[in-house]
């Protein structure tokens, strides 16, 4: 259990007056309040720290005790014994108490608990609060993201089955309402946030709803034209190659891309880039024929 320097947390001097503490707290609260820092876990952590610091330093009795025994909190039992009969927890309020953020036992550091236990919070109003939200990350490959399917995640020993809609994006977060922590004092449960991490596919690249792939064709098909079969996420597709197709030529297969998220039946496009394979290790006969072709071109 580490000692917490609450003066440092509030960025004030040990000799700070009540007004200076209040001012420092309000300044930091405006900076780190969860409403002005949505989805920022670091800000949320900092906000809890400054609240805790304010609860100690903003209350004269708590501050007195902290100043006396802060760094030597391990000796708190002796301190309590020496002051038997004295009540160190008055009913005065700290400057502010952001209880609407549903602080519970987990929101206080072990250090705070060791110094002040639960008594300093007896002034807190008994309000109902929503439980904490949980968040987790789920890894999918591109093929899995292509189809709507069900998945089960285990959170705190509970299996939660949910549907992943086709077309989910890398980095996208979905909310499963009511699967977070239990509410406080009968409040509603928190929510579960699942962020998806989608792996690259060896053959296909994705940009939103469009897919990109490279198909290698041989020199003869590029020169003479013909039919090839290409793989798509939707199965194999036959494709005509025009005679004289150049290396790097791009074609678009409409509607063969990725499904549009939550728009059933709508798909992006598939863009194919042709890469022409130049034959190597030619036989004598082939060399002879290529030379002949070359002469025909240059003559």
């Amino acid at each position, binding site marked *: 259990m580490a000692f917490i320097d609450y003066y440092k947390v509030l960025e004030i001097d040990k000799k700070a007056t009540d007004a200076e503490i209040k001012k420092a707290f*309000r300044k930091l609260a*405006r900076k780190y309040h969860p409403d002005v820092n949505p989805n920022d876990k670091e800000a949320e952590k900092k906000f809890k720290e400054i609240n805790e610091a304010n609860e100690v330093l903003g209350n004269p009795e708590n501050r007195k005790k902290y100043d006396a025994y802060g760094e030597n909190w391990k000796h708190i039992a002796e301190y309590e014994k020496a002051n038997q009969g004295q009540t160190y927890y008055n009913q005065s309020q700290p400057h*502010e108490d952001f209880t*609407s953020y549903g602080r519970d036992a987990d929101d206080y550091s072990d250090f705070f608990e060791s110094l002040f236990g639960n008594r300093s919070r007896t002034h807190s109003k008994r309000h109902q609060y929503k439980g904490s939200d949980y968040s987790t990350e789920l890894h999918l490959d591109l093929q899995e993201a292509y189809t709507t399917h069900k998945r089960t995640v285990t959170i705190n020993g509970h299996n939660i089955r949910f549907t992943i809609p086709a077309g989910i*994006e890398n*980095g996208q977060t979905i909310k499963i309402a009511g699967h977070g922590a239990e509410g406080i004092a009968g409040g509603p449960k928190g929510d579960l946030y699942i962020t998806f991490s989608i792996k*690259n596919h060896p053959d296909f*690249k994705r940009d939103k709803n469009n897919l990109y792939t490279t198909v290698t064709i041989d020199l003869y098909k590029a020169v003479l034209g013909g039919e090839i079969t290409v793989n798509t996420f939707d199965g194999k597709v036959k494709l005509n190659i025009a005679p004289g197709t150049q290396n790097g030529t791009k074609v678009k297969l409409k509607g063969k891309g990725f499904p549009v998220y939550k728009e059933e039946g709508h798909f992006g496009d598939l863009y194919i880039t042709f890469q022409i394979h130049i034959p190597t290790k030619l036989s004598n006969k082939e060399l002879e024929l290529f030379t002949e072709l070359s002469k025909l071109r240059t003559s």
Partner: protein
Amino acid sequence: MNTENFIPINTLCQHYKLEINFFNNLNENGLIEIQLVDNIQYVHKDSIYEIEKMVRMHKELDVNIEGIDIVLNLLQKIDALQTELHNVRNRLLLYEN
């Protein structure tokens, strides 16, 4: 109008211990939409998440109505930038193996 999905402003005033002026000012600044039914002011229940956010900013951070408007606009801009960043990051994957 069916008021099933609406919450009377008076109920909000009692719950958040705020004057009705606060909600009227939010309405005048276009931050909430107050509906009048049989001379009773209501807000739609879907707007309660945003209203609570504004109430917290006002009560806990001492931000006035104009300040709340500015904060919400800036948060909207941050959200748009984050979406753009997310899209750019995904586009970068096109060039990574």
